[in-house]
């Protein structure tokens, strides 16, 4: 499954059936409240029953993943970050070692080839922080491979379209 998760609407021509596009800005997604319910009360399910419960299973199933997000302080801006925080039901509370470092055990989460399209007016020091963040995400979100593309907002739709075309060409 191929998933495009975006923090804003995009005008894309998607020809393949197995590509799902989700505009997070059109959905009702509340903040994670840090209750650990998805680990210790209703394992694998968030106790907040809003639109996020449709998104994190799609994240888990996808093997090709495209995140589109504005960048703020070297991280994802609020719309994408809110969703990523709500995706912890796809992990277990339990800890495993990955390359000698402690990380959460994943539930049924496909290995991912991820592309992160980071947009906005992004200075070099902000890009450096974001690269470090995605390297951490790769370990905690089952990225087998990933690429980061920085782009201006004015170029965003073209950049995303180019990446989707690459998927379709494979």
């Amino acid at each position: 499954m191929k998933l495009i998760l975006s923090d804003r609407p995009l005008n894309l021509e998607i020809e393949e059936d197995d590509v799902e596009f989700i505009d997070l800005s059109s959905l009702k997604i509340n903040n994670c409240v840090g209750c650990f319910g998805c680990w210790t009360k209703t394992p694998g399910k968030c106790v907040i029953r809003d639109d996020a419960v449709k998104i994190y299973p799609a994240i888990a199933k996808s093997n090709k993943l495209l995140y589109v997000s504005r960048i703020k302080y070297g991280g994802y801006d609020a719309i994408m970050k809110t969703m990523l925080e709500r995706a912890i039901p796809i992990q277990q509370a339990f800890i495993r070692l990955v390359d000698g470092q402690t990380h959460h055990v994943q539930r049924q989460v496909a290995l991912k080839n991820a592309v992160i399209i980071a947009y906005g007016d992004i200075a070099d020091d902000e890009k450096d922080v974001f690269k470090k963040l995605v390297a951490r995400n790769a370990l905690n979100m089952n990225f087998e491979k990933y690429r980061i593309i920085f782009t201006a907002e004015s170029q965003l739709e073209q950049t995303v379209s180019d990446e989707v075309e690459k998927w379709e060409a494979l």
Partner: protein
Amino acid sequence: MGSIMILNGSPRAPKSNSKRYATIFSEKCKCKTEYFNISKTNHIQLCGKSEEFSDILFVFPLYADGIPVTLLNFLKTLEENPPKNKPVVSVLVNCGFLEYSQNNTAVSMMKLFCHQNGYRFGSVLKIGSGEAILTTPFKILVNRKIKKLASSIACAKYCILQTTMPISSKMFLKASTAYWINYGKKNGITKEQMETMNIEE
């Protein structure tokens, strides 16, 4: 000696470990401190209040490898509503992983906020195994480091500190597994149920 505004950026601020760390900080600190939870509705009020302090200490947990969205949204409001006299910004961040270094990216994000908005960056305390360490004998290590953090901010001799449980990774896996099994048990959930591979099924 100045005064320190403690801002809790945890999504579960009133019941959070961050609040417990903040309480220890207030107890150990020799200068005046005032504690606030960051909520969805008090951003502007906190921005105005920050003018009264020489320092701000942000206390928060690591969320999805970075700062929690609760804190991110507050920083965006602070950017739009800066105090006239900008306090020095210090950070106390904790993660549930053994390695305190897993907090580094969140610290870099806070430094970047300060750099972009003209705040002096102060001290840092990075805590590993932060979900459980206060329930273990290693709490004493945290208390000591928080005391040092408080002293560094009070004296404006800013520094970087860190602590975690002084145990091996394998030992940590055993201890954390027991911790979570016990957590589930309180909710009537077994280890096997917690280990389900199903998501929303």
